[in-house]
């Protein structure tokens, strides 16, 4: 279960488990997390937790809510986010629910067929609130108490890497399409012959097509392993350093000379 670590100027005040669907933060005593400080609004912010996601929302506070130094209205909390309310800091820690789970089942598609608070299989007896909670599937009267997530191999726990000591927990972020290709050095092709000789084309995209559509086209792809050229269309295949390639992708080396649609060009890495 995720938790918040409340601190003031570096000294820990308390830890708050996010065990309720909705946790209010503010100056009034009605808040689950009460912070008695004039810089904090009566109802300052709230955190709604649905399964593995916690959403932070500023409730229209006077002095605002910051996450990692940036003011927010609504924000999905990521592991190690630091929420700032006045001089108080709340660090969000998404704990791995169960150990010993292989990473393999992480992100396995599962069916969600009961209200999420039950599906979470969490001990929290969270009472329903009038938040736009994800509707459960309406059409099914749950007949017998079958397992709520039949298709689930125990939940999506491995959301956090098994090595929490690691300074950069890679797993949660990995759910986002990564752009490893950006790690590649920038490359370009320079036209060597024909009317456009001397022109340079930076390969800034993951895919760059070269040639004349309908006549001969090849594509240069940027991958984590480097740059590759592949034939796309036309009867003739590209010629690399005087040798015609086949239908397979061909890795490009610095200063390779490409001949395509009657035009010579040089591939080179920009350092």
């Amino acid at each position, binding site marked *: 279960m995720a938790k918040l670590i409340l601190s003031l100027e570096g000294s820990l005040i308390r830890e708050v488990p996010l065990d309720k669907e909705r946790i209010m933060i503010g100056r009034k005593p009605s808040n689950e997390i009460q912070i008695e400080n004039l810089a904090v609004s009566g109802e300052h912010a709230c955190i709604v937790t649905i399964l593995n996601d916690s959403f932070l929302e500023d409730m229209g506070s006077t002095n605002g809510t910051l996450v990692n130094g940036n003011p927010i209205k609504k924000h999905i909390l990521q592991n190690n986010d630091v929420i700032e309310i006045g001089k108080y800091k709340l660090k969000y820690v998404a704990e791995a629910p169960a150990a010993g789970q292989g990473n393999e089942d992480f992100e*396995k598609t599962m069916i969600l067929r009961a209200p999420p608070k039950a599906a979470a299989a969490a001990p929290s007896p969270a009472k329903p609130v009038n938040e736009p909670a994800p509707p459960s*599937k309406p*059409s099914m009267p749950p007949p017998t108490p079958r397992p709520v997530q*039949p298709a689930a191999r125990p939940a999506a726990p491995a959301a956090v890497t098994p090595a929490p000591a690691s300074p950069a927990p890679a797993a949660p972020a990995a759910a986002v399409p990564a752009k490893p290709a950006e790690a590649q050095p920038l490359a370009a092709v320079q036209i060597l012959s024909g009317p456009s000789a001397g022109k340079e084309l930076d390969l800034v995209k993951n895919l760059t097509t070269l040639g004349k559509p309908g006549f001969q086209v090849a594509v240069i792809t940027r991958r984590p392993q480097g740059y590759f050229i592949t034939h796309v269309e036309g009867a003739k295949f590209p010629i690399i350093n005087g040798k015609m390639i086949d239908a397979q992708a061909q890795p490009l080396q610095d200063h390779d000379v490409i001949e395509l649609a009657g035009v010579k060009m040089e591939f080179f890495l920009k350092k």
Partner: protein
Amino acid sequence: MNDLSDFIEITTATHSGMVRSHNEDSISADAGIGLAVLADGMGGYNAGEVASGIAVAMISSELKKALVAANGELDMAAAERLVSEHAVRANNAIFQAAQNQSQYAGMGTTLVVALWHDNSLVVGHIGDSRLYRFRGNKLEQVTRDHSLLQEQIDSGLITKEQARHSQNKNLVTRAVGIDPEVEAEVHSYPVEAGDIYLLCSDGLNDMVTDEDMELTLTSLQANLPLAAAQLVQQANDNGGRDNVSVILVRVLKSFPARAGLVDRLKSWLR
């Protein structure tokens, strides 16, 4: 019945990805009858493969029989009915198998069925496998996921951009074979020559942004098999955390259903 192989071109690609040991996706495509089916199975051990396999095998063979029987004389409403009926049948078969055999308990699958008929496309889907349309160098998502995330987006709880960072990507709210009853969401759309349709499992759209998919189709539309291979490769280059399956379908020219016998007779007599 109509043979559509001269009218549409289909290419498929599927891969278990970089993390999973086996592929629980199943795909099938038949240009002759203008049908593409894709399913992403779930459930322990091999049950996911079994569920998606049943769905794809049943729907592709049974729908083919039905289409042959209809002999091209099928209006759009009937085509839509066919798709939803066969989704229901697949649901029953998987649900029964899961009830009867303990090793299959709880198995299920997502499903997307695309049927090209009479210059139109009938799409039925359940879960978070998708169909996109690429037209005029723009990629547009046609189906809307039956997933927790989509419901959160719809209710305004989170934005599409925030959804990328969600941990709840993998929760579908509707699936085939989990419950005794399920309804496919079925719609039909007019088709234009030159359209490219993309069916995919979430292993693609979770790993590759819509922008990159669009760029790939724009760049490689001349070579459909290469485009499909490239999409799968991109998903794997970005981590390949899930099985990834792609079906690409290009509409080469328009394909009106053959006129009925009476109409043909009339036009011949005229």
